[in-house]
């Protein structure tokens, strides 16, 4: 039985701003199902003495000193902008937030 529904794929795609065709939704529902099932197998080997972890490296507290380094030159920063004005990125009208 599939654990990832078409609706779920469509909803997540919308949240991620990915435009999927109905055929793609079908295909990804199936593929994601396979991925989820594969990962679920990990549960079979996980025992209570294996702590949950979100990170593969046995490291903590990797900190940087609070010392500034030179910033990117503004010209380089804006070189990647589709459009710029007054040293700032110009973006299309923002909708739906206010």
């Amino acid at each position: 039985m599939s654990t990832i529904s078409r609706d779920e794929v469509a909803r997540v795609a919308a949240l991620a701003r990915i435009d999927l065709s109905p055929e793609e939704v079908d295909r990804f529902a199936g593929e994601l199902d396979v991925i989820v099932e594969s990962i679920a197998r990990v549960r079979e080997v996980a025992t209570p003495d294996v702590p949950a972890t979100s990170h593969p490296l046995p490291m903590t507290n990797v900190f940087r000193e609070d010392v500034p380094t030179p910033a990117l030159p503004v010209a380089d920063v804006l070189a990647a902008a589709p459009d710029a004005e007054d040293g700032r990125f110009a973006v299309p009208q923002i909708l739906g937030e206010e």
Partner: protein
Amino acid sequence: MTTTSATPVALVDYDDAVRRYDPVLGIEVHVELGTRTKMFCSAEQSFGADPNTQTTPVSLGLPGALPVVNGTAVEYAIRIGLALNCQIAESCRFARKNYFYPDVPKNFQTSQYDEPIAFDGWLDVELEDGTVHRVEIERAHMEEDAGKNTHVGGAAGRIHGAEYSLVDYNRAGVPLVEIVTRPITGAGERAPEVARAYVQALRDIFRVLDVSEARMERGNVRADVNVSLRPTADSPLGTRTETKNVNSFRSVERAVRYEISRQAGLLDAGDTVVQETRHFHEDDGSTSPGRVKSDAEDYRYFPEPDLVPVAPSRAWVEEIRATLPELPQARRRRLHDEWGFADAEMRDVVNAGALDLIEATIAAGASPAAARKWWMGELARRAKQSEVELAALAITPAQIGELQSLVDSGRINDKIARQVLDGVLAGEGDPEQVVVARGLEVVSDDGALLAAIDEALAAQPDVVEKVRGGNQGPVGAIIGAVMKATKGQADAKRVRELVLERIAG
């Protein structure tokens, strides 16, 4: 866009609303940390830099850029957590909060979700009349600020009607700590005051901890205010609204007040409160709906794979705890005891923002009573006249200390001291300089006084007769004449002594 509560509702009179409903608050305060660099990269951060001059590939979200945590920001977050009586996590991690908005260049904000660095704290908040209300803190977590959008083409820079927007990423990645309260109950009609006092207490704490300049007008401290109403204190919590980005103490108070009146109007009419984000309007103190929360509130949080956990050692936490400065409330209580002011006097001092000034004036040698007398009397009056804060007057606590020592040593009297004050405020220099330049020193030279006394005695022989006859009452007339002749610069006590000697002699 959907504005389900756009229909205007009748606001219920505030006093009536809080008589019939029990308000519950929840406050989220964001503070920008005053580190030199950003949270996850070494771009400098400072207020007022030219647009996009403080960015790195990390703060621009360029492909392949990897974040590294600013250790000082973590220390500041722990300081804040400890000052708010929180537990500090043994281990915590960052998470991605995913959403799309032009001021978030990575398309996610690096924040903390299920594992905040600090949790389970409280803060006792003191209202202006001295009442204490305990606010419970659910959590304080680390995250980063967004860039700044400027909307072009619409009215007054609002999004509505804007043709396009300009984005400056200097602020993107500036370290933030977000402090979230548990539901604040039991404040009743004083809920707006409690909200204001809480945000103000936090601001004072940030400053004392030296973790932020905490300037409200620069947006260093921003509050989101949740308000809900319920019929009685025993009822389940009502539906809340969240008024975003309320950025002054007064606005926090007004926003809570408005929401209480508005929600009471809805409930009275049998409508329901919509759970939504609202915007506060400074001009009339009202709020208006933004987006409906349930629509968009799916941030697909997941643990940040590019950062390892933060696990502050207990030794480090204790070291930070041991170096915490005295917090504002403890300091107020200590000074209250040391100075021996009455409760009401102390409250007035605090509310007038004179605490630091008076403390510094005492450090400059004045007695607590004298320091209070100057700042809460003559100086408060002048500040009010020129409509400025006490601290903005062109006079320092050290100068007031000097002025008072001139009075104490008898070189000037109280009346002349006010003239000296005028001189200092007019930029004529320190009190000593003003006294010399204006020739205000008390005439202590007995010779000069005697000349004036003899003149006055000669002019009023009848007084001399009466005094010689054993009636000292009329001697005041002679003293008055001498004070007049010396333009008030004589020490009246000395004049009296000399007059009596002269008449007797």
